[in-house]
């Protein structure tokens, strides 16, 4: 095994070479699976004109953790591709929303399942597919649809990524990953769609073969850099969700 090690000793090192203009996806659905430490390192690293892909831009919950909104506030973001440019409750305000409304940052609003499937398609070599989702809505206006077996479907294109930032519970040195419970969410999908996948790992990284091949959630061929998350307060960890005051 002469292949270069996938282990990185710091989050800073893991994101050091990311160029301006990259397309980067962040895993996570609420707290679980969100790569807080890599996002924080990207803020310090300072890459600009980024296109960021995630379920949401963050900031609806307290305590606030590193999120797309912070990168936007940091002036690093050109565009966001996500399922929420605004909060579900109209009374909640996402930090990102005013930047979008003012036109300072561009956004592409995508239904959550379509977002996941577009990245799955990119990873699996499917350049485009049809979906029933969003047919008849504002999101389908002016776009190509097709009737198949009597039902109307919308054409959607693959969404390839330059980088995926994800978080998992367990990793071996071959890059095989296991996620804990709903930590899994977008992680395995984004890993397949990215040229370079960087994973922050909860537990000490184990030797190749330490995960039974039947128990691997994301195959090591999709994972290029691994960083172990240090204990708090040096490392950032999910906390209990606190409702924002209304």
């Amino acid at each position, binding site marked *: 095994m002469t292949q270069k090690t996938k282990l990185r000793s710091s989050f800073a090192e893991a994101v050091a070479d990311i160029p301006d203009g990259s397309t980067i996806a962040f895993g996570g659905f609420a707290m679980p699976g969100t790569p807080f430490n890599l996002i924080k390192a990207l803020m310090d690293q300072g890459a600009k004109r980024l296109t960021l892909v995630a*379920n949401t831009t963050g900031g609806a919950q307290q305590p606030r953790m590193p999120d797309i909104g912070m990168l936007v506030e940091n002036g690093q973001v050109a565009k966001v591709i996500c399922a929420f440019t605004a909060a579900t409750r109209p009374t909640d305000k996402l930090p990102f929303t005013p930047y979008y*409304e003012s036109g300072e940052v561009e956004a592409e609003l995508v239904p959550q399942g379509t977002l996941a499937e577009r990245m799955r398609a990119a990873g699996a070599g499917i350049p485009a597919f049809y979906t*029933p989702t969003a*047919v008849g809505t504002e999101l389908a206006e002016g776009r190509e649809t097709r009737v198949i077996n009597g039902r109307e479907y919308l054409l959607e294109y693959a969404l390839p990524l330059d980088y995926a930032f994800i978080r998992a519970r367990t990793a071996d040195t071959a890059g095989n990953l296991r996620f804990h419970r709903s930590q899994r*969410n977008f992680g395995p999908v984004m890993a397949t769609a990215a040229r370079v996948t960087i994973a922050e790992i909860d537990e000490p990284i184990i030797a190749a073969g330490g995960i039974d091949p039947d128990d691997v959630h994301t195959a090591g061929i999709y994972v290029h850099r691994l960083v172990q998350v240090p204990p708090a307060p040096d490392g950032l960890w999910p906390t209990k969700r606190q409702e924002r005051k209304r």
Partner: protein
Amino acid sequence: MSGTKGLNRQQMADRVAREFQDGWIVNLGVGIPTMCSNTDIGDRDITYHSENGVIGYGGVAAEGHEDLNLVNAGGQNVTLKPGAAVVHHADSFGVIRGGHIDATVMGAYQVSMTGDFANWKLKGQKGGGIGGAMDLAACARRVFIILEHVTRDGSARLVTACDLPVTARGVVTLVATNYGLFEPTRTGFLLREIAPGLTVDEIRATTGGMLTVTHGLREISISG
């Protein structure tokens, strides 16, 4: 909130949960729909699915027993039932898009008498919050909507046609409001059950579109 008349939030959720049939796979949206999981459904076996890939979650975790890596669609730390399984996001929406969800329960701003509904964007808003709502709306076998019968300023939420951007068209199976239980039909909203303390006239006055009333209209049982 305007729901001072008729059912409270839990009672609306309870009424919808009573529709769930043994063996169903059900997705509960954020807000009132989540409260369906509090309803006592007796010995019916219901599998709750959430968008983030949890199939078979249970109630909210007890204080101090939360698994911080396990949440439902609303971000609450939940528990798992025996027989639960976790899948990734693309597979989770494969469950939804593939028609494997027997019923989804969602909140909404408006429902039209033709079964359209709107829940992702306010009028004039740039962007919005879609989440998984469009996938669920287009693909679940049944779409149940729970909403307050009227807006804060008293105007109808059950309307002839939505004037807000819709989430999906012609998909709503059943609507529970604090005033009653409604079904969009080709002849307008069919009032199937009425909340205690409400009259058909009150409902007619606060409902947009056509309203028909089922034969032998009954009160919604709120015992559960």
